[in-house]
Structures are given as C-alpha cells and as structure tokens.
C-alpha cells in the first residue's frame, strides 16, 4: 500500500489516487456525483488566490472543492511517485 494523506496536503501539480471518501449526506453525494470515488486519479491544478478552494483535475474535467471539504478525502500518493519525493 502507498502512503495515504489528506487531499488538502497535495501540492499544486501533484497527482494521487483517491483512497477513501469519508463524507456522508449531501457533501458525500455531491463528491461522488462528480466522480471523486476510491480509485479515481486526481491532480491538483491550482489553488484560488486565498489558497482555498482548490482546483482538481479528473478524467476530462476540472472541479473545485473547498479545503474543509477536501479533508474528507484521503489519497494515495505512492500510486504515482513524484520525482522529488
């Protein structure tokens, strides 16, 4: 298994694979509706000027998510190791 960290900690340009989504209710559903489910590959493509929300790239589209919403998502970063790490 790779190293699992909260999505919030990903740096811009970093890629990871979603390990777990822990959000229930409306937030959980919205997250799943957008395809943020375990196994999905994501890349952080940017952060808003005030560092929140964050812009994520998924297969074929970009979506934005607040930091406190990203906290419900855990990602595996060793799935795609970055050269710096």
């Amino acid at each position: 298994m790779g190293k699992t960290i909260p999505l919030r900690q990903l740096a811009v340009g970093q890629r990871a694979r979603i390990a777990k989504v822990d959000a229930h209710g409306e937030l959980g559903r919205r997250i799943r509706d957008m395809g943020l489910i375990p196994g999905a590959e994501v890349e952080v493509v940017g952060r808003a000027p005030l560092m929140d929300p964050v812009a994520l790239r998924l297969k074929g589209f970009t979506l934005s998510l607040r930091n406190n919403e990203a906290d419900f998502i855990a990602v595996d970063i060793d799935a795609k190791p970055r050269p710096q790490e």
Partner: protein
Amino acid sequence: MSANVIVALAGNPNSGKTTAFNEYTGSRQHVGNYPGITVEKKEGIARVDGREVRVVDLPGTYSLTAYTQEEVVARRVLVEDRPDVVIDVINAGALERNLYLAVQLMELGIPVALGLNMIDEARKQGLRIDAARLSQLLDLPVVETVARTGEGLKDLMSAAVSHGDARRGTPWKPLEISYGPDLDPVLARMVERIEAARFLTDKYPARWVALKYLESDEDIRALGRAAGPLAAELEAMAAEVARHLEATLNSYPEAVIADYRYGYISGVLRQGVMTRHDELSQRLAASDRMDRVLTHRLLGPVIMLAVLYGIYEITFAIGEYPMGWVEAFFGWMNATASAALPDGLLKSLVVSGIIDGVGGVMGFVPLIMLMFMMIAFLEDSGYMARVAYMLDRVFRLFGLHGCSVMPYIVSGGIAGGCAVPGVMAARTLRSPRERLATILTAPFMTCGAKLPVFILFVGVFFAQQEAQAMFALTLLGWGMALIVARILRSTVIKGESTPFVMELPPYRLPTLRGILIHTWERTWQYIKKAGTVILAISILLWAAMTFPQLPEDRTAAFEAQRAAITAQKEAAEAGGEKAAEAETADADKSASGAAVAEAPAGADQAGEPSEAAAEGEKSDPFEEQLAAIDAEEAAAGLEYSIAGRVGIALESVTGAAGFDWRTNIALVGGFAAKEVIVSTLGTAYSLGEVDAEDAGSLAERIKADPHWTPAAAAALMVFVLLYAPCFVTVVAIKQESGSWRWAIFSTVFSTILAFGLAVAVYQIGTAMLAGG
C-alpha cells in the same frame, strides 16, 4: 397537448443542453417557473420528420438524487409527465462522469438516447469514442453531436424519436446493475416485497424504489410513508444493511452504490468504447494556460476587478442611451395624454399613476438587457465559475457563496447600480440558502436611484467631504449587506453552507444566439411583471398620494387666488404693452416675493426667486405667481392625502430619527421608486416639479430650514440606503425567492433595521453637535 411526442432533454450542467435546446426549438419556446420554486421550466416545439415534438428542457443535474431542487424537478417531470424518450446530452470529453446520470436514467427504465456532445473538443483532446460500440453495449441510440454548430442534432432527435416510438406502449425497461454481495440479496428481497404490495409501482420500477430506500432518499421515503405500511419495513431493511456495511466494510450503502455504478460504467468503456491518447494533465491545455493567468494569485483578482468594473461601466454607459429613449417615449406619452385628457382625476390617474408608474419600470429594461447579455457571456464562457472560485473564501465568511459577488456589484456594489437586475442575477447561485441571503441583502447597495438623495444632502451638509461621504455610504452598503447576510445565515436562513464542489468548465466561446435568447427570456419575464403586479402597485401608490382630495373650500381658495392673479395680469397687459425689459426684471423679483407672502405655508420661505424665475428670460411674473399657487395646492393636496396623513401620524415615531412629516411622505413615495424621494420632497416643500438630477431650489430650502441638521441629514441618508427596497425590487425578490413571504420579510426587516440605525445616527450625531 398539440404535439404527440414528448422528448425531455437531460444532462450535466455545461454539457451544452441549452445550446441544443435552442437549436431544436428556435424561438418557439416558452419559459416559466415550476410552481413555488425558482427552477426554470422550459418547453418548446421542434419539427422532426414532419412531426411536431414537444421538447422539455430539464434542469441540468449530475445525478438523479433528491438533494437539489433541480434533481427533484427533473425526476418529477420524468415520472409524472412520462416523456416518450429522454435525450441525455453528454459532454463527450468527460464521458465517465456524464454517464453516471445516463445510468441512473436507464435504471429508471425510461427510453434514453445519448448525444455525445462537444465531440469536437473531445477529438481535439485526442479522445476517440466508438459510438456504435457504446450504442450496442447500452442498447440505446448514441449519436455524436456538436450543439454549437448543430452538427448531428437532427440525427440525434430522429434516432431518439424512433427509439421512443418503438418503446411506446411497452412498460419501462429498467437497467439492472449488480450492487455486489452485500446489497444484491437485500435488494432482491425488497423488490419482492415491493412488487407483492404494488408499493409505488404505478409510477416507479420496484428496483428503483428499493435502491432509493438504500440510498436513504428523502423524497421517495416521504412518498412511501404516505403510500402504505411497507414503508416502515423497507426503512428497517435499509437501516439493517447500513449497520452491516458500517460494521464490516466501514462504508455505507450510498457509497457502495456509487462505486458499483462507476464500476459498471468503466466496465462498459473498457470494452473498446474509448481510447484516450494522452495523459490526465496534458489535456485541456488551452484552458489551463488561460487559467494560469486568469486565476493567478495576483493577476487573477486584478483582472477580475477590472472585468466586474468593466461590465458595470459598459452597462450603465451604453444603457444610458436606450434608457433615454424609453424615458423620452414615456415623456411623450405623458405629454400626449396630458394634452388629450381633461384636467381631473382620470388624467391624474393615467398620467401619474399609469404612464409614470409603468414608464419608471420600463426605464430599467435596457439596463436589464445589457446586464444579462454580459452575465450570460460570463456564464457561458466559463469565467463566472472562476469568479466564484476566487472569491469563495471571502464570501464564505459571511455565509455566502463566491457567486454572490455578481448580484452585489450589479445592485450597486459600485455606486449607481440597480437592485432589480441585481436580484435577478442571483440565479447563477445554485445553493438555495446562499442565494436567498444574497437576494435579501443585495438591495442594501447604493443603487442609482438613491444617489440623487445622497448628492442633495451631502451637497448641503458635507460639501467639503463630498467624495469621502459618498464613498463611506458605498462602504456602509457593503458592510451592512455582508453583516446582515451573516446574521440571516445564522438565524432565519440557518443551515450548513452548501458544498462548493463545482465544475470549472473549460473556457469556451459562447454563441451569440445563446446569449440573445437568454437575455430576451429574462427581459420578457421582467416586462410581463411590469404590466401586471407593478402596474397595480403603482396605481395603489398614486391613490394613496391623491386621496382624499382637498375639500371644496380649500380648492376654492386656491382658485380665488389664481383668479386674482389672472385679473391683475389682464389689467397689466391692457395697460403696459410698452414696458421696458429692465422694468420686467424688477417686477419679477417683487412679484415672486409677493406670491410667497400670500401663500399660507410659505411663511418660512427664504424669499429666494425660484429656479424657473432665475433662468427664464421669457418668464412672466404673473405666470410665476400662478405656478407658485399650483405648487402650494399640490403640497396641500399631498399633506391632505392618505400618504400625507400617514407621514404626519408617523412624525411622533420618526422624530427620533429627525424625520418630519415631509420627509416621511417622501420616504413613503420612495417605496415606489427611490427616484421619487427628491421630487416628493420638492412637492411637499411647495416647490412644484423638482428635477431629481438638479435640485438646486430644494437644496436652498433645506439649507434654510433649521430642522435640517447634519445629524438629521446623515440619519436620512443611512435610512434611504438601507430601508425597504423599491417595489420593483420587492417583486423581483418574490420572483427569485419563490414566495411573497421573503419579499415581505425583506421590506419589513430592512425598514426596521434602517430605522434603528437612523435613530442611532441622529441621536449620537445630535449629542455630538451639541457637545462639540
């Protein structure tokens, strides 16, 4: 129903659904609202192979759950209206995610056809989709389209209609997906019970109902509780599974169901449907490059401010011309009606009540058109989503959403806006609580109609700090809007902030046609309101300021004064044809002084010649006197009317904020339109017609009136800034919030708040003036 085929358009937001709908129906479309909610209902007629097809545009959704109004509406239409076929407009570039909705439509069992839209973009991104293979695997028509150019749309519609024809008369054929070893057994048991009891099966397939119970769908559960005793049993079964999943997998049914749906989709796509030529991050390259500038840490906000300011400037700079034409047109109507009708009540009703009332409202039409044209451009291009993205952090502090910025700016966040299009602009917000808070607070901004009041009083009392005072008022508007939004969001509109999970669509060039249709829809809705509700309120306010009329003896007294002047005039004309110019000028001064002395309420008048007298070379001293008497009569009439009596009755209360009865009447009139405040004040001060833009004579009067102090002026400005929105805005609030309740709330709440602050300002200000 004239058309015999009904086709519903479904799809994710930004998939090109509206563009496709416009292509299909052209101008033959009708926009309304679903009763009680603000989701738009669009329908139109299309011609397909010689047949009339009724096309229903469902709201854009990502899913078919019951969390958002849009989803509930989409589901209701599908189930209640039973369209013959649903066309799911799919953004081919994000096929996986878009199929998530398609699968749910298929699970419902309704005939579905897929439009692989934006196939042009997908191809450019190096994506290859085998439509025939997808069609075969899903057993439904799949057609590649480019809604922007119309490519493929005809084929899609024909395929959909014949698919619907083929399936007509047969029961819906729901797709069955396996939900794995934990859910499949319980689903089977639930289906058995549901079918045995015919529980909700008149409308919904049994397996769909069972799934919705597992997903704890509130809408279906409520229907179920009304339908029969099985509801409790199903809820218990769902709860049991949820406990089991929690214990064994540390998961819950909704998440498991979503996983299996996506699993099904990737299973289909893996069978040679789709090949991607490149990697996750290299795609959408052009859009990403634009984002690197447009949402850059420093450049992003600067560009955003420039864009917002630009929109505002363009709207009001260009809007001025057509607004002038509309005003000129209603001015002409006014003059024509005045000339055609005999003096009296009917004339007053037609001219002041109807023409001026509706004219004032129609004057906004050009502004609304321009504003929506630009907002539609920002929305369709994808920039609006970036604005929300950049500002969300700030607005969230106040319980709002990044998208709240547009309504605020338009309403007068940059002084001079207008709350009517502002409130309407709140439609871009898809989060109901944030939208409501925005709608209720946007009218605090310094709209253009409040400016003449501020200019008048700032000019008289704070002339040295004019710019600072105006800026302070604008800031006060922002401050109050944000603070009140925060308060509302933690009281009457309490509730967690709506998740921000939002798509940032790639930048696209909108089509002119799409923008024009969008603009026209909004404008037409507004015009319809002007002709109905607003006309009625306008007449009501006219009546309040007209009735009861002055009693006979008082009108007779004014008539006698007029007769006396007319007699003098005739005598003078008979005797002094050859009077020199210089002499006339002399007579001018003394005559207007005399008129003032004669007038009953004119005792405290400062004896200044009125504006008309100062500028009018041709003006004749007797005409001056007649005008002064007319003005006196108008003032007396206003004082005697219901509005006047209300103003006088309120004096005991409003005195705390330093408002006398004249101010009160003006403020009552200001409810019709804030522009009216200055002119009503003019009438109340017996100055006759006062131009709101150029109120020199009124300024003189106010300066001379000892009742007006800087404290009273400041209190009035604060009050005007914050009190009840004008009624056009109130009607817009009703329309946008979906109920009169919020419109009335806004009126009452704002007025109380404004009055409280005005009293504070007046009392503290007066104490400070006395002390310092």
